[in-house]
């Protein structure tokens, strides 16, 4: 129990003392999570829209597949990405292994099904009358996409926030693809895993609190988008 309390103090200490390793991990975490969120939202919103908006033959099957992709273990994604970008892999030339770009690719794969699935089911819930209204007002396909997404913006926000939580907290990909290299690819979560393994539970808690603070600040600045 005591280490939880200790963790609180430690968290302040880490941030205030400007601990190099901590700030590096914070920075790395922010960078990769931002990239992967941008990519997964950029790809996930249109895909989610298409799946949710249109009725097509294998829609149900596609949804099942998508739901299954929600259960891709991060280590698995990490291993798969590793296979492609490792020295011997087909993309080995690009030198993405143990880089932030590499992690971001993996995290995009992680977040994409979340954004897509939640967007799709949010879009599915929109009224047929909205569709009809848009067409009848002369909306083209792009307008329909944009307007529908805006109509269900709270649902989209939920999708993004959920995916963000997932990306921010994942360990497997960062560990496998990034290698948890201190000052380079060590994220807050891989640092937590490390501290925990060392038995430095208070440090783990402290880093966890740092991560949660980041999430809090991001969500706070998103909350102006919310209703009421």
């Amino acid at each position, binding site marked *: 129990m005591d280490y939880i309390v200790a963790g609180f103090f430690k968290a302040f200490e880490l941030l205030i003392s400007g601990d190099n390793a901590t700030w590096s991990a914070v920075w790395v975490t922010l960078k990769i999570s931002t990239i992967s969120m941008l990519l997964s939202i950029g790809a996930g919103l249109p895909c989610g829209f298409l799946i949710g908006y249109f009725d097509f033959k294998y829609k149900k099957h596609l949804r099942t597949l998508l739901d299954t992709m929600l259960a891709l273990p991060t280590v698995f994604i990490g291993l798969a990405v590793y296979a492609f970008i490792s020295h011997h892999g087909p993309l080995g030339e690009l030198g993405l292994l143990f880089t932030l770009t590499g992690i971001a690719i993996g995290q995009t794969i992680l977040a994409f099904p979340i954004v897509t699935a939640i967007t799709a089911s949010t879009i599915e819930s929109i009224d047929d*009358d909205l569709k009809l209204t848009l067409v*009848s*007002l002369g909306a*083209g396909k792009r307008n329909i996409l944009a*307007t529908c997404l805006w109509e269900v913006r709270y649902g989209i926000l939920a999708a993004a926030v959920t995916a963000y939580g997932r990306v921010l907290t994942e360990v497997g990909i960062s560990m496998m693809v990034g290698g948890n290299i201190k000052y380079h690819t060590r994220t807050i979560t891989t640092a937590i895993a490390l501290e925990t393994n060392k038995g430095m539970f208070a440090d783990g808690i402290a880093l966890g609190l740092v991560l949660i603070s980041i999430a809090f600040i991001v969500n706070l600045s998103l909350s102006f988008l919310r209703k009421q």
Partner: protein
Amino acid sequence: MNKKTLAYHLKDIQHFYGNTKVLDIDDLKIQKGSITGLIGPNGSGKSTLLKLLAFAQKPTCGHILYNGQKEFPFSPTIRSKVTLLTQKPYLLKRNVFENIAYGLNIRKDKRHLKEKVKKALRTVGLNFEVFAHRKWHELSGGEAQRVAMAARLILKPEVLLLDEPIASVDTKSAKLIREASLKARDNWGATLVIASHDLQWLYSISDMQLSIFKGNIFSTGMENIITPPFEKYNKDLIAKKLTDGQIIKLKSPSPKTNTAIIRKKSISIDLETQKDLNILNQLHGHIASMLLEKKTGYIMSAISIHDMSFILRLTPDQISTLDLYPGKKVILKFQANDVEWI
């Protein structure tokens, strides 16, 4: 009819929901610059037809020519020219101003936006200052309906399709909407098709009326429809029995059809019965309402025969001669073989 003046030409249209056929139109032409009234009971296919005309849905079979060209949903010719006011008006989750400006924004037409929105709101009787910044859910039913109408009018479309535009609108606004519709036709030559259950209003606005019944169209205006069940009356005739004991005799139909139509012009109105000629129907009832058909000066009169309602078109002369007024007992007469079966 000159082809150049046709806005729509529907050919062999059939539309199905699942296995149910809800529209069956062999041939229908709508003139440019005309105002067509759509009349028909619930579920007769009015909204479906309007959706097809708006190219918001594709008919199951057949095709629709617009300005002489086959057109399909999302074709650029259609998109910015044909506008539908849906039966359940849906407002976007924005304020009233943005709802009305939406169509123009899509068209990237941002000139004088505020003035245009102001004018559109005025056209439907809403005050810009009071309503422009209201959120979509801060409106009464009729106000929402009128905002939706304004969002259509502002586009000045070639074709304006209105699905029950005055369903929950007060009398004054109904008048405003009528005026706006007429102006649309007169000022920029819009073609209008309007579905409504308010016959008086519809007659006051439309050049011609189409009756829809079970997906079939009758272009002769409002018809008097007699629905099953029927009983055999004698060799040639069948009968519809009213619960007050009166009987409507009709010439037997061909086996497949089962709904009878009596055209207005076949029915005459009188105060006294004449000797029964056997095939003459003489139905006792009373006048329920009389409405002025402004354009023609005729008086559309609804006559209640027990639980049925017949519509007749009377002249002022007839009314004066017979001293007719709502509540007056009258007798409707028509021949048993003045029936058409569908």
